[in-house]
């Protein structure tokens, strides 16, 4: 739609600026709070302009003892979160790619049965099956480990379903062509299917990375060792566990650091991500 009326232009811009401000303001406050010292943050009114303690807070949050001395440093929690998010995304993507491949390209008994079984698990997210899953993970001795953090979240019907749809859009002749060229099933998977699903994989990776990064309930349940704390958990704990009043400057710095990796992933993969969501021709 191409409109050329100045009033409308002004109006739409105002709406957009308001929208941006609404989203940006809390982030700005986070940033400002992360750049003042502890004392200033306890005085009213809260500052609206950045202070001079940003680097100092940054060092203390990332490497220092954090809040009250016995806290894990934030770099460790970032690492835990990163490991969990990456394991979840890679795990989900590989498992769904392989199961979609099996369902679309191989004729085996009860094929549709398996498909529906996978599909039905859509109705059972972690939150619903959390007790039995905890039991299993505990019995397998995976509490307080990266495996325990990621494996129960890896099975994914959504991603399987998505890749199935992607594969179904690839014309049969592509497979036949590859067969005539002498490519076996695995070769076809690697050389043809994977490259053709590249943008979809990227889009899914962005979504899953953020999903994994933002996990809260599950990590809270299965990690007791503070060395295994993830960053999203820790922010909540920092608020609660403080005996004295909360150290807002450090908490806000931690929040900033927690926001960073998802932003980097989105920005880094933006081009592929958009292609993956919009591209139709194969």
């Amino acid at each position, binding site marked *: 739609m191409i409109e050329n009326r100045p009033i409308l232009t002004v109006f739409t811009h105002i709406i957009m600026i308001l929208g941006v401000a609404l989203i940006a303001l809390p982030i700005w406050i986070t940033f400002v709070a992360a750049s003042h010292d502890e004392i200033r943050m306890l005085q009213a009114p809260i500052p609206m302009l950045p202070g001079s303690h940003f680097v100092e807070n940054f060092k203390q949050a990332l490497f220092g003892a954090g809040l009250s001395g016995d806290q894990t440093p934030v770099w460790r929690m970032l690492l835990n979160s990163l490991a969990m998010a990456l394991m979840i995304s890679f795990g989900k993507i590989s498992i769904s790619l392989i199961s979609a491949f099996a369902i679309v390209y191989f004729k085996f008994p009860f094929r549709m049965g398996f498909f529906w079984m996978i599909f039905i698990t859509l109705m059972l997210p972690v939150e619903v099956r959390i007790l039995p899953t905890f039991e299993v993970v505990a019995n397998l001795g995976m509490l307080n480990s990266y495996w325990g953090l990621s494996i129960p979240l890896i099975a994914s019907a959504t991603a399987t379903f998505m890749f199935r749809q992607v594969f179904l859009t690839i014309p049969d002749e592509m497979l036949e*062509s590859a067969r005539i060229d*002498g*490519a076996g099933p695995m070769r076809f998977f690697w050389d*043809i299917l994977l490259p*053709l699903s590249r943008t979809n994989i990227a889009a899914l990776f962005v979504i899953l990375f953020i999903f994994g990064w933002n996990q809260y309930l599950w990590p809270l349940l299965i990690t007791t060792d503070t060395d295994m704390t993830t960053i999203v958990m820790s922010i909540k704990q920092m608020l609660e566990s403080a005996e004295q009043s909360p150290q807002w400057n450090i908490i806000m710095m931690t929040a900033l650091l927690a926001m960073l990796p998802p932003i980097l992933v989105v920005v880094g993969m933006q081009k592929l991500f958009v292609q993956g969501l919009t591209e139709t021709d194969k």
Partner: protein
Amino acid sequence: MAEIKLDNLIKAYGKVEVLHHIEGDIHDGEFIVIVGPSGCGKSTLLRMVAGLETITSGTISIGGKVVNKLEPADRDIAMVFQNYALYPHMTVYENMAYGLKIRKIPKDEIKRRVEEAADILEIREYLDRRPRQLSGGQRQRVAMGRAIVREPSVFLFDEPLSNLDAKLRVQMRLEIRKLQKRLGVTSIYVTHDQVEAMTLGDRLMVLNGGYVEQFGTPIELYQKPASLFVAGFIGSPSMNFMDADISNGVATLANGAKLKLSSKFNGPATLGIRPEHLVADDKGAIKVTVDMLEQLGANTLVHGILDGTQTSFVVSLDGIQVAETGSNQTFYAEKDSFHLFDKETGKRIVE
């Protein structure tokens, strides 16, 4: 040497048989066209030769070896698909090289073959492009190139030109023909277009409803169609048919007109005459009420109804002709140019 032998081939999907008792011997270096209306089983037959469809019963041999159980890659064939089926994420070069790479052919040999094929097809300047950056005609050439570099003993084509515009289709048709003669590779080509079939094929296999109606050279098909179906399918505009009673070399039409034939057959039959074998003649026995004229420049098509019947009739006259709509015209044909078909079976009547 790669002659192909189809022996009593049957294809069924579940209980539905779509190809019935297909027989055929294809000689080394021959260009065979499988032609027939849409849905008659042409692609299925080709894909059985390629190994993409299982064989319900019967055998296919290529070069004297039964290939029923061989994977497509092991049959020494190359196939060009209607939608080309190029790999979109690979360059033209990679597309052509892919099959060779899997075969573990040395890199420099691959390079030599791909460049040679690219030169033949004049696509050398596109080697670094992706398929989506090419026009339909260029993609078609790449698909051909991918087949050529394999140096197979059989080429299979499934309606490779039907996605191109009319002009390009004619041009590519000639090129495919020249290329096949130059390489001397046995080829099977599927099309529903009878003109394409007539111009390309050394021999044509006419399929109808899963049966082979006739298997012969274009001239044989034109001059001695084995059935009503072939007679109507080959040639454009198609042959005129009329009911007739034949005795002692004279055919009596439903409107009472009498035509001289060279046949010694007696009894009822379907009489066929090609539009281009009729000439305007005041004393001719075939009387037609004119409906419409089609002026094509080089010739004129007269569409009408056979006088006194409901049978529609087409005549092709040389040059530009005029005739009033609704007027009666009479035509004459040599007695040798009539075709006779059995009324029941539709088969050609031969004495």
